[in-house]
């Protein structure tokens, strides 16, 4: 795979407390990758760190490259061209993510000026075209609206228009629908898929909902306590989930058909950063825990093409396969 973006051993800590504990992740051109996990597991921090958007107190180490170009510690001028121009990002709360005192049209035109050198009437015409593309009705008039005059769903469409303005190769959508009504959520997700087909850009969809990700992505990464514990193509993940945490998330999904049943929530909660176990971070909540789990953090083991999991049970399975192959 010739990766567009590669994260290698990406680590982040705030005030000495680790939030990311070594993320390895590749995103191929045009690919749609889902990033799932409970609140606080580091989904947002991963991409904020890669783009240099974390506050100064965050300590970031490792590597994040865009087609071979290192982004961590890159010069501000380099980052400004990458941000919005090659990797765009949209956020959870569209209402507060737009500047309240700037007309929405101008917020789109600003991105057009920065990344495509467009100004005046040309920028305005392109902004209108983008509004049409993201499904904002009455686009020409809406250009002069203020963010507070629009609904949350409309504002998220504006955010997407801003993101598209720079013709990015990758769009990172950080829980783009969490703050929206259920019907609007589906519309926004469909829009993202349509846009990906039209533009050929890659998509990273961050969500705590495995169902959302399964519908829109080719591949899923499951995160737990600052690490990726399992990643696999969507179909494979549903067929052969390996990490007990992934199993837990799947168990929490409502069935598509058949009678509704209560969601099986995973008992327990994520360990606090200062009380992280020496071994597997999921062990304290794991039904299949064994003494070996507490010895060391299990590494990611390849199980099938594109499928790897960080669990000693996977390690055992991997060994078994090697033995069979030999």
């Amino acid at each position, binding site marked *: 795979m010739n990766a567009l973006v590669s994260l290698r051993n990406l680590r982040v800590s705030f005030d000495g407390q680790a939030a990311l504990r070594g993320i390895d992740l590749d995103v191929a051109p045009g690919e749609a990758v889902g990033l799932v996990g409970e609140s606080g597991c580091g989904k947002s921090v991963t991409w904020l760190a890669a783009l240099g958007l974390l506050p100064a107190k965050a300590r970031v180490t490792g590597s994040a490259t865009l087609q071979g170009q290192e982004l961590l510690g890159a010069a501000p001028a380099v980052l400004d061209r990458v941000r919005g121009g090659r990797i765009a990002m949209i956020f959870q709360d569209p209402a507060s993510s*737009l500047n309240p*005192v700037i007309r929405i049209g101008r917020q789109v035109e600003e991105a057009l000026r920065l990344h495509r050198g467009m100004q005046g009437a040309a920028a305005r015409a392109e902004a209108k075209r983008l509004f049409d593309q993201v499904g904002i009705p009455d686009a020409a008039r809406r250009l002069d609206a*203020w963010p507070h005059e629009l609904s949350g769903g409309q504002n998220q469409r504006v955010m997407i228009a801003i993101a598209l303005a720079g013709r990015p190769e990758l769009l990172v959508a950080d829980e783009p629908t969490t703050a929206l009504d259920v019907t609007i959520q589906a519309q926004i997700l469909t829009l993202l898929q349509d846009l990906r087909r039209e533009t050929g850009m890659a998509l990273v969809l961050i969500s705590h909902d495995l169902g959302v990700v399964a519908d829109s992505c080719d591949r899923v990464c499951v995160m737990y306590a600052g690490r990726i514990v399992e990643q696999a193509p969507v179909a494979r993940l549903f067929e052969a989930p390996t990490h007990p945490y992934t199993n837990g998330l799947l168990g929490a999904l409502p069935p598509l058909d058949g009678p509704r049943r209560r969601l099986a929530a995973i008992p327990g909660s994520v360990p606090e950063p200062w009380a992280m176990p020496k071994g597997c971070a999921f062990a304290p909540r794991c039904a299949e825990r064994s003494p070996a789990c507490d010895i060391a953090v299990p590494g990611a083991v390849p199980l099938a093409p594109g499928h790897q999991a960080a669990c000693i049970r996977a390690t055992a399975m991997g060994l078994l396969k090697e033995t069979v192959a030999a």
Partner: protein
Amino acid sequence: MIRFLGSRLLRAAVTIVMVVTFAFVVLRLSGDPAQIIMGADAPPEAVEAFRAAWGLDQPVWIQYFHYFGAILQGDLGRSMRDGRDAIVLVAERIPATLALTLPALAIKVGLGIPAGITAALHRNSFIDRAVMMLAVAGFTVPSFVLGLLLVLVFAVQLGWLPSGGQDSWRHAILPIITLGIGGAAVLARFTRSAMLEVLGQPYIRTASAKGVPWRAVVWGHALPNAAIPTVTIVGFMVGSLIAGAVVVESVFSWPGVGRLLVVAVANRDLAVVQCVLLLVAMTMVTSNLIVDLLYGLLDPRLRNQPRRAAGMA
């Protein structure tokens, strides 16, 4: 917009009526002007004659209606001391007061706002700590203490500047600095916290995420938002251009409106006191009105349903 202006103007009028009434009541309650002006050992007939001449022998509510009716006709009465029109006496002093307060306002804005912005942009750095230490010192020290301190150093010890009076521009320097420093300190702290609040907002992260260079994020995205709360404080400072120098004018014996007020109160010179208070109320109310209009200009969210951010009309 018309309705907005209408309600604001009505409110302004009510405020002024209240100030005028308050002044009237307090001054009548706090001692007999006739006795004070004529002196304690004046013959009773003389005091009576004085009362009759100024209408002080009539019931208080009649005095109030006369006084109010006269104000409505633009007549603010005459000084009981020297018989001149109160408004002329006050107007004569305005230029002297503005000669202090306008340059002081320039210092407050020109020093306070940039210092606050710089501190916020370098949060927790040496610059931030230094600015904040100076700012805390600047507004915890009362202006008469600061004034006396400056006099002690620059007039008494170094002999560079005069300690009081109004003979040349050099006399204005110390009072201007005294007034300016306190205000600059307040504005620096306020601007810093407004700026920090804005810099933590998601839309600032959005701007960075779309590739806006940091300088442009600060100037184009953060400052216009931080300006909204800051305008309140600046507006309040503009509102106190006339009345804000009472203490400093007294410390430096500067013949402005503030000193006139102090002297007039001591003398129970009713018309003059009322005239000064009316003037002060009008500047306050006017600046508040301007702040309200500026809000609408700066914050599109307030244009449809205006709402006050600070209640000091």
